[in-house]
């Protein structure tokens, strides 16, 4: 008897399939498992856009702040310091100081400086703008990832999609509160700014329009606790959260949670300079455009630490500290798309698609048995092996199973038996022509092969296109279908042939066409 390599490969495939699909089937602790898509296990999927223009603006703003700080420190008189979304302009009053400013500005990376007499206009080169925008996206991804990692959800997934979109996937969000907290944490700019209150004009703040304020280089900001209370502050901040080194939850003397923050050396320096020169005036601690407190400066504050007090719960303070620690979002994010599925709907989807899968499977199996008898049984064994193999391969790759993916498996069941139908029909034909059963089997396989291969390859073409151009859940469909088709070539073609080879002697002796191939009369 010659070596039956087919049955050996089939047996190996079956053992492999059973072994590696176990972790997924029984959800064992060890081993690689299929991950369920968000549509099946429930969770939140968000596609975020990034307002990159805001990142450019905030860089411009920080240049304005450093110009002001430089002028103050060197005691250079400047006038008309103002900024737009893309440029900063100012005038140096004493022409002796122009050279000093020229050298200061030339050190700013990527800046394009246009000088007209004593007036300077600073903007960014197009290349620098590209860089800032790109950085803003990467920084947003990094920041959101950091925040979510500290938030304590299992395996948050944050990734770039396309050029300037961010995908955030949060599996296992179970409650509405969790979802709310996660959303706040992701979207919070966490932009801390220390700003000087314009003491000369603050008394008139309630009679001012934003345009009036802008004329003095000021902005009107609301109080965080009492939105009706307004402050008039200088638009160019003294310093911002980029100089923060730490933020932790502490408690004030009333035992209310507060956030203690610490500045780096440069920040502490600027902070010390400013407080030293502005004793008696107020300093506004501004977070995301709201004034959290505006204490009086009693003396020069060195050391560079401060406190944000607000009406926080401990949890709220904790989330805010996470956001501050992870850094501010250079550019705000906005929602481009969202898919969220509640855990109960996910469970329903699993149950319903399992019923459909089992129902379809049983129907096909019974049908094959009735129609083809033994040949049907052999095809059914191959079909079962096919399912195991599909699950095993998906488990090993850690593939994601989605609801359309379930449909793909259901479809694979239908298509996998197709190969066996084609082969069995060929065999029947050859038997009608008077060939011996053994010969009919051999020729049946070889005759059917080209048709089966062509049929499978064209379906694969469609599946690959779906994978490349599909998104999210649809990719899952393409994956299960492709793997299912590939696995069926091993089980339905090679595997069943191996089983016939194994039964060769019995088939050779038998004349019972009905038993083997369900042929009547």
């Amino acid at each position, binding site marked *: 008897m010659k070596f039956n390599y087919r049955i050996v490969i089939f047996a190996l495939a079956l053992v492999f399939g059973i072994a590696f699909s176990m972790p997924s089937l029984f959800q064992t602790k060890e081993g690689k498992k299929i991950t369920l898509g968000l549509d099946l296990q429930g969770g939140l999927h968000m596609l975020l856009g990034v307002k990159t223009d805001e990142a450019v603006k905030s860089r411009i703003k920080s240049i304005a702040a450093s110009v002001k700080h430089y002028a103050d420190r060197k005691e250079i008189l400047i006038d008309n310091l103002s900024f737009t979304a893309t440029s900063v302009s100012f005038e140096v009053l004493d022409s002796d100081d122009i050279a000093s400013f020229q050298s200061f500005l030339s050190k700013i990376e990527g800046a394009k400086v246009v000088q007209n007499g004593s007036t300077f206009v600073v903007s960014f080169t197009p290349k620098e703008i590209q860089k800032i925008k790109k950085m803003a996206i990467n920084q947003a991804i990094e920041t959101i990832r950091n925040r979510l990692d500290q938030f304590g959800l299992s395996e948050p997934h944050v990734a770039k999609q396309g050029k300037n979109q961010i995908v955030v996937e949060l599996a296992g969000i179970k409650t509405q509160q969790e979802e709310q907290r996660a*959303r706040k944490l992701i979207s919070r700019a966490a932009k801390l700014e220390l700003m000087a209150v314009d003491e000369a004009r603050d008394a008139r703040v309630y009679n001012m329009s934003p345009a009036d304020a802008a004329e003095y280089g000021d902005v009107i900001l609301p109080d965080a606790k009492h939105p009706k209370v307004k402050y008039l502050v200088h638009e160019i901040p003294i310093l911002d959260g980029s100089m923060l080194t730490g933020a932790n939850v502490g408690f004030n003397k009333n035992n209310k949670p507060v956030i203690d923050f610490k500045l780096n050396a440069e920040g502490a320096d600027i902070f010390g300079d400013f407080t030293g020169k502005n004793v008696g005036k107020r300093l506004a601690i501004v977070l995301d455009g709201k004034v959290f407190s505006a204490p009086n400066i009693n003396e020069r504050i060195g050391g560079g630490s401060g406190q944000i007090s607000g009406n926080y719960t401990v949890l709220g303070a904790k989330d805010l500290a996470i956001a501050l620690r992870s850094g501010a979002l250079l550019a705000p994010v906005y*929602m*481009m798309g*969202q898919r969220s599925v509640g855990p109960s709907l996910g469970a329903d989807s699993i149950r319903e698609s399992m019923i459909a899968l089992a129902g379809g499977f049983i*129907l*096909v199996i019974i*049908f094959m048995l009735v129609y083809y008898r033994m040949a049907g049984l052999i095809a059914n064994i191959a079909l079962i092996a096919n399912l195991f193999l599909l699950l095993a391969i998906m488990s090993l790759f850690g593939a994601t199973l989605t609801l359309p993916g379930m449909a793909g498996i259901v479809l694979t069941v239908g298509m996998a038996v197709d190969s066996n139908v084609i082969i069995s029909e060929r065999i029947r034909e050859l038997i009608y022509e008077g060939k011996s059963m053994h010969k009919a089997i051999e020729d049946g396989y070889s005759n059917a092969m080209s048709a089966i291969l062509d049929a499978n390859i064209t379906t694969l073409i*469609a599946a690959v296109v779906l994978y490349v151009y599909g998104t999210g859940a*649809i990719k899952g469909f393409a994956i299960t279908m492709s793997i299912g088709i590939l696995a069926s070539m091993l089980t339905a073609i090679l595997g069943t042939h191996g089983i016939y080879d194994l039964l060769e002697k019995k088939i050779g002796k038998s004349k019972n066409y009905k038993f083997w191939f369900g042929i009547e009369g």
Partner: protein
Amino acid sequence: MEFFRYKSAIDFMGKSKKAIMLSITLMLLSYAILLTKGFNYGIDFAGGTIVQVKYDKAAPIKEMREKLKSNKMFNDASITRFGSADEVVIRMKSTSKNVAEGIGDITRKALQGTGNFKIRRVDIVGPTVGNELREKGLMSMFLAIAGILIYVAFRFEWRFAVASVVALIHDVSIASGLVALFGIDVNLDVLAALLTLLGYSLNDTIIVFDRIREGIVESKKMTLRETINDSITRTLSRTTLTSLTTFFVIFTLFLFGGEIIHPFAFTMLVGIVVGTYSSIFVASPILLWFGFDVKKYHTKLAEKAKREAEKNRMREQFESGVM
């Protein structure tokens, strides 16, 4: 058990004129529906918001409408049943860019006092994303057809390729027409179903074509028409069986797979019926009308065999060191 046993070829091609008339009528009707009624694009392609709400009793739709009026956001909202009487879907064209405040929470607040309910699903697709998906969708359809055309041309002959692609266009057109007629929500999964349908319908066609090719090569006496009839008859059993088994499983999916999978299952069901029909009555007649020249094909095959033989002879000579 047996459905058919081959006795003699059934004259399918004799009925092909009627069949093609039927196909053309159906295609024209489909295009008319697509042009007038059009697809009922779901949010994947049109953009918009979907909120799925499940009550612990029958959903009080009237009351819900009243409540939703209080918030401007729901101005264009429509509420429809989703599967059971307890479950509804709120559809809106508008989308929110706000990350911090979820539509789910807003809906929950707006619906307060209408009974016990759970928000089970919130899908938002922004307008830019919708456009992108639509472009990608069309592109994928085009690429799949092109890829299949190239493959079949490579494996068979260009006339086979064109005939099978015409059949594919026929299937996709009619399936799309029915999807539009029944107002099925066209989302990504329907696109996936249409693409799968391409692969599936082509399977049927290829099985028949494979037989035709075999018939052409083997029997030199039969005309093309006879060969086609013979091949279709010989594959009829397989065609019916596979269509039936696939139909069974998709039908169970349609019945028990749940509301979300409905559009996919519907499209597939329609596709299986149309795809089976087209491989017999559309693809094959076209092949016949192209006037596939059997004699020429034989000469070509003979030449190819001759070239191969020549090449082998040369190689043998080369290897044995004659040259």
